[in-house]
């Protein structure tokens, strides 16, 4: 009986609450190394909105393959990147988690009421090799908590 309850609880928790994931690739280095294991809390944004600095899981066609990115822009904000420095509403954004920067340039974008701007922490790689940009709030699956 205990085994059944435990198995059911585990199934429920790891299917609908905490999604285990393994980081693949270097786009979140040095914060997350390729191959490291993490959990995404699907309930994190049930009672609050995603915040700047949160690391989130972003779903593609479903929850089994996710982008893991950091939120740097919130709905309604103007965001640009000039020579590797991120500007939000014209002011430079402090990003202590970024250890290496290349001279990335992104023309200013204005986020809609449903959009966040997400990016990886590894800015030492070529921008062309790094997936980043605006994402609809419906694609944010939850917050990476571990």
């Amino acid at each position, binding site marked *: 009986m205990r085994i059944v309850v435990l198995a059911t609880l585990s199934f429920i928790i790891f299917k609908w609450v905490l999604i285990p994931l393994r980081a693949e690739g270097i786009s979140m280095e040095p914060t997350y190394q390729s191959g490291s294991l993490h959990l995404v809390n699907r309930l994190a944004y049930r009672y609050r909105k995603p915040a700047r600095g949160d690391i989130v899981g972003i779903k593609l066609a479903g929850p089994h393959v996710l*982008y893991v990115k950091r939120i740097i822009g919130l709905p309604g904000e103007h965001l640009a990147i000039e020579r590797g420095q991120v500007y939000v509403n014209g002011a430079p954004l402090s990003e202590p988690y970024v250890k290496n920067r290349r001279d990335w340039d992104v023309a200013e974008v204005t986020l809609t009421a449903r959009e966040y701007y997400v990016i990886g922490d590894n800015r030492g790689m070529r921008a062309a090799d790094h*997936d980043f940009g605006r994402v609809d709030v419906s694609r944010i699956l939850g917050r990476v908590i571990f």
Partner: protein
Amino acid sequence: MTRRFAVSAAILVVLVAAGVFAWRTRETPNEREIRSRLDALRNEVNTSTKDGIGVALHAAQIGGYFTEDAIVELGEGAAPITGRETIMGMVARLQPRTAAFRMDLDDITMEMTPGATTADVLLTASFARRSISTGEESLDAREYALVMTRTDGTWRIARITAIDTLR
């Protein structure tokens, strides 16, 4: 009595949950067939071959998963690839490189149109590549929308459109 009731209630909850899960994940025969076709395509893409006849045969087999007038749209900056012949030509040219990667298809969902002759399919395709120099494996994933049609009793891909998750 209380304990027996609790045990019965717990078993009932598990059974109901399992039933709901099974009902929600059930598939029609057409859906099963499409999933099977996509699995077969994935296996075919992941099959490695390098000799001339093998490459041509491999390309022809992959071409068989597409309709004559299939269109592949890979996104901004890339011209659409039109026609099965073109796709087969590209597969043959890419073969030495595709041998270095493995493709997986995840999160496949589909919606059948009335009459069940066309299906809109959404999936994530992952390409794991191993660097020849460092041996490191990297993973690229992208979301794709497929239109599949049933022709001559077989489901084939009529259109592939890459979706930009991050814009």
